[in-house]
């Protein structure tokens, strides 16, 4: 793999729009994290009073770019410059950018559930004199803002009493209270139903007509086509191109091509599939959101996997892939779960993690540090954590056996550590992932669900992980691989299920798996939904 170094040359041609008709210009922004170049020489310009959409695959750099813009990554941690309203700006934090009139609304809403709407709107920006809250002003100004965003709720309603759609409007009212000039919305409709989405999009349009510029990040291409004036596509941390949605006849296909158009080189080890009989089948699996219990996060999903087969789950952020995996792994996510899990012809639907492990199912989480490892413990204890009964007798752990097993995995999986006594927290991401894989391989599972197995690890270690996955498949294990990187799924999987909004929207065999093809299924928002009422189009 030859990657170009972090420092790319100064922007040659670039977007050289006249300063006068841009409200925001970000010039050759480069942002690196240890080992990863997240943004490479990205330039973007936003005109006053437009809705500017940014789209790209997961990991293309959209959120990073917005964090640079809003000061979450302060000036000095990136290269390049930001020009806002004609002047170069250096934000040291979110307060700085807010002060200039830039407000960002994140995917996960940042409202305090036990405060009222009015209190939330003015949180950190209180209507007060000498530290004493002026409730009259707070509530009357809040009421005006609510009217502006079209929310018919009293300002003293508690946040936990209103739905996500309305909460999203409160977020916008909060931004308006800060006299926002540029509103950034990160996946604003991801958690909303059709009606709320339509309302929100209408509101963004009406705010634009009142002169508020908006940047909207969205995976939903139909929404972008509907409201965006211009659209910038990012891919692998680089600007691909900016479409003028009025001047050209832009289609979803055009956007998809720009988002995924990338050559596939030899990044994946070869494997000749040797696929046996079916091992695991999931039937009509439905999972509800743990808090918004009426919302279906997984909706009637059915799929199967065979011995020696690597099956991919493709889906955009929030499509419900992890939720599907965790809910079937002993109900570790969601409420009101229904459906059946059939393993080797028997119904094994696991009620606890213990059940799942005994049934021969393993789940390696997407978030190693939060859910996968005890970072305080050493390698050997982490490897044995899910199968202590294999290295113990009468409840007494055989430390020797444990160390032997861990050493074997250290050699087999090439975990780079001087000994198995090394604390997991001191390992690199790739080696931590190998410890997690060791833990689950040691349970002797027949089905391994690997959730983003290569997230946040470097290219060399990725190849090693792929090799491990292939050798597991060759040994007759069934692998379900969840990944946000389409090339990875296409390079590794024998079959890929596409998931969108909790539903399985497509099943694509290896031969037909192209990024365009998958992306089409993955963005199949509400098209296939016949049971939902749909009046917005």
């Amino acid at each position, binding site marked *: 793999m030859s990657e170009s170094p972090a420092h790319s040359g100064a922007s040659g041609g670039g977007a050289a729009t006249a300063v006068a008709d841009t409200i925001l210009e970000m010039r050759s922004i480069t942002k690196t994290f240890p080992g990863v170049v997240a943004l490479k020489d990205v330039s973007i310009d936003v005109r006053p009073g437009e809705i500017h959409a940014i789209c790209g695959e997961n990991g293309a750099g959209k959120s990073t770019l917005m964090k640079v813009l809003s000061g979450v990554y302060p000036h000095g941690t990136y290269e390049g410059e930001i020009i806002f309203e004609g002047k170069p700006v250096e934000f040291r934090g979110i307060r700085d950018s807010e002060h200039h009139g830039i407000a960002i609304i994140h995917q996960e809403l940042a409202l305090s559930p036990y405060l009222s709407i009015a209190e939330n709107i003015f949180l950190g920006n209180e209507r007060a004199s000498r530290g004493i809250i002026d409730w009259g002003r707070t509530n009357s100004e809040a009421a005006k803002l609510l009217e502006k965003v079209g929310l018919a709720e009293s300002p003293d309603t508690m946040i936990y009493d209103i739905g996500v759609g309305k909460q999203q409007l409160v977020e916008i009212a909060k931004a308006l209270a800060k006299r926002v000039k540029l509103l950034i919305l990160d996946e604003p409709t991801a958690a909303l139903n059709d009606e709320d989405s339509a309302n929100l999009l209408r509101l963004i349009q009406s705010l634009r007509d009142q002169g508020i510029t908006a940047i909207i990040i969205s995976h939903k291409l139909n929404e972008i086509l509907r409201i965006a004036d211009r659209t910038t596509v990012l891919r692998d941390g680089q600007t691909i191109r900016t479409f003028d949605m009025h001047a050209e006849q832009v289609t979803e296909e055009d956007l998809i091509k720009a988002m995924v158009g990338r050559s596939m080189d030899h990044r994946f080890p070869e494997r000749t599939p040797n696929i046996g009989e079916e091992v695991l089948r999931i039937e009509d699996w439905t999972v509800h959101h743990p808090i918004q219990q009426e919302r279906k996060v997984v909706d009637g999903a059915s799929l199967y996997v065979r011995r020696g087969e690597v099956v991919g789950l493709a889906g955009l952020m929030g499509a419900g892939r992890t939720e599907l995996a965790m809910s079937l*792994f*002993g109900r*570790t996510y969601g409420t009101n779960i229904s459906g059946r899990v059939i393993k080797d012809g028997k119904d094994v639907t696991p009620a*606890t*993690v*213990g059940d*799942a*492990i005994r049934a021969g199912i393993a*789940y390696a*989480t997407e978030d190693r540090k*939060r*859910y*996968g*490892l*005890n*970072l*305080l*413990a050493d390698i050997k*204890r982490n490897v*044995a*954590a*899910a199968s*202590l*009964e294999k290295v*113990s007798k009468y*409840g*007494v*752990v055989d*430390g*020797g056996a444990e*160390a*032997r097993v861990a*050493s074997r995995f250290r050699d087999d999986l090439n975990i780079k550590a*001087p*000994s*198995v*006594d090394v*604390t997991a*927290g*001191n390992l690199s991401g790739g080696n931590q992932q190998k410890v997690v894989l060791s*833990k689950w391989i040691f349970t002797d599972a027949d089905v391994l669900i690997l959730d983003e197995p290569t997230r946040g690890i470097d290219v060399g270690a990725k190849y090693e992980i792929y090799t491990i996955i292939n050798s597991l498949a060759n040994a007759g294990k069934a692998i379900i691989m969840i990944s946000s990187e389409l090339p990875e799924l296409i390079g590794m999987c024998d079959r890929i299920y596409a998931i969108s909004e909790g539903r399985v929207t497509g099943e694509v065999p290896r031969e037909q798996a192209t990024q365009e093809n998958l992306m089409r299924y993955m963005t199949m928002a509400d098209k296939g939904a016949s049971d939902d009422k749909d009046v917005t189009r």
Partner: protein
Amino acid sequence: MTTLKETFGGNLRQYGIVGALAVIVLLFQVLTEGKLLLPNNVASLIQQNAYVMILAIGMVIVIIAGHIDLSVGSVVAFIGGVVAILMKHEGWPWWAAVLAALVFGLLVGAWQGFWVAYVGIPAFIVTLGGMLIFRGLAIVLVGVTLAGFEPGFVAISNGSVTNFLGYIANRDVVTLTFGALVIAALIVSQLRARAALRRHELHVEPVTALVVKLALFAVLIGYFSWVLAGSRGGTPIVLVIVGVLIVVYSFITQRTVFGRNVYAMGGNLQAAILSGVNTKRMNFMIFVNIGLLASVAGVVTTSKAGAAVANAGNMYELDAIAACFIGGTSVYGGIGRVSGVIVGALIMGVLNMGLSIMRVDPAWQSVIKGLVLLVAVAFDLINKRRSGATVR
């Protein structure tokens, strides 16, 4: 620093506490003009602080798992009441009353474990409730005091192991034998552990380090038993109880599946759940266990006082918690050792005794102990930050 670290195999923190204990002992030995280490003072240091060590052994498991138990002081008083009633009013023999007390301890633990594990109330709240409940029950049972027990019961905390081997140079031979046995056991266990590491081709500490370490501990234990052998009674019975508990619980925490799962839960609860640890049952067991140990402490405390007192065990929970944190237990769970908290308890005990011998006002004693607790935990946090480990 690196060589020091290599020599002691990365367990510097553990040795650091032992070092702190040594410094404090020497300091008070000087300040009290040699009174601190008089044989009878050493014996009563152990007798007076046995309860802290017993409670701290249970508490460290609770804290490693990420909980806290505020009720142990009240449970001590409640168990005292149970023992006293059974012996005085029901006429039970003392050993039967003690057994019954242990059963009551298990029941108390099961009660609190139920609320924590199966109802899901934070342990802080459950044991705060327990603190009130069992204090109240103790008053109901005891009134103010119930005194006058059989000598057999009083001997648990005040008596010594019978000297059936006579004296050498005016030193109790039984105590010296105990000391020799402990040194031998220590050497054997260290050598076996080393051999096991070798067998599995794991990292072993250099021979010199092992020899230095063993020699150091042999001298310490030898000196300690020599001093103790000169005390009025020799080996206090309660020292035997505490010693057995230390060995048993070191084994439980380090070598059993139960112990492993306690550390796993404290280190990363989510990861433990996703690894199939039955966290509910574990939480239940953890509280049953500390209930049992609190009842042992209750028996020891009642025996020491020779009476059941309604306000016995007041603030004992704080002594136990302080011993845990001084002994290197992580405030965030996941880290801690039985040996560490025993040293922590001894540090508190030596402070108590030394300051008392010096006739320092109890109010100032309290201030000093509070500062020691702060410094110990601050030292721990700074140490971690410097070593670059993630501090949550």
